[in-house]
């Protein structure tokens, strides 16, 4: 079933088509939400809200971009707004699970990785989002630009600045980079 047919069937209220749409995109949506939130519960909440909104608003999807790009736009908006709301409330996000998941891989270069993750966390929201989407999750600048409603050039410039900030934050590890 091609994308247009799938969309038409979802619009007609076909439950199987809804599930097919969900299956086709849930992995990337959840991964993006998790990478940005760093918390399992939040990633689940944001993924759930993304698909609920997508099904509610599918009638407004005009097909100018790919359905996946449209979904990532919703996912990014839901996730960033959710994180901003939490930040405003000053709620402490429990990161135990994230630390536990990432912990196994840290043994190789614990200091460097720990510092890198802290430096990524310390980036401003726009730099961190572009860095995570491009360098960690492999989104294209076109997808990022659409999702964040910015120009492609802006996405490239923000990625370049994010990398420069990370390089500067890890400058004292320069000798360890090649290992």
């Amino acid at each position, binding site marked *: 079933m091609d994308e247009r047919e799938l969309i038409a069937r979802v619009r007609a209220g076909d439950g199987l088509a809804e599930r097919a749409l969900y299956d086709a995109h*849930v992995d990337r949506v959840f991964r993006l939400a*998790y990478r940005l939130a*760093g918390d399992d519960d939040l990633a*689940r909440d944001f993924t759930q809200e993304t*698909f609920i909104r997508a099904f509610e608003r599918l009638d407004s999807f005009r097909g100018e971009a790919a359905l996946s790009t449209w979904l990532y736009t919703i996912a990014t908006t839901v996730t960033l707004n959710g994180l901003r709301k939490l930040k405003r409330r000053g709620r402490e996000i429990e990161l135990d699970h994230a630390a536990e*998941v*990432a912990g196994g891989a840290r043994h190789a270069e614990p200091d460097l990785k720990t510092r890198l993750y802290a430096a990524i966390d310390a980036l401003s929201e726009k730099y961190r989002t572009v860095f995570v989407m491009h*360098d960690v999750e492999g989104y294209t600048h076109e997808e990022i630009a659409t999702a964040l409603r910015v120009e492609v050039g802006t996405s490239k410039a923000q990625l370049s600045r994010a990398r420069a900030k990370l390089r500067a934050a890890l400058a004292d590890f320069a000798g360890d980079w090649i290992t």
Partner: protein
Amino acid sequence: MTDDRIDQRLRELARDYHRPPAVPREELWARIVAERARRRAAPRVLALRPWLRWGLAAAAVLVLGIALGRLTAPVGSSPRRRTAPASWPTGSRRRST
């Protein structure tokens, strides 16, 4: 080491940043179905965005202020309009032409 090579190394190291667990597909789908059903059954509530809330509050204060100002203004304090006395000759212009 050039910036490009450092960036490549950064990307490799960053792969473990907030590494996601396996996607709980079935559980998430069940949650989505349940939440959509709940929202369909629940009465629709008008959710105001924060800026709209503040705008409405400001407009309400303004309306209240104007209403209070009008109610508490002393009677007769408004400037009187000059009206032509009834004794003015109304036909004087006609006569002059």
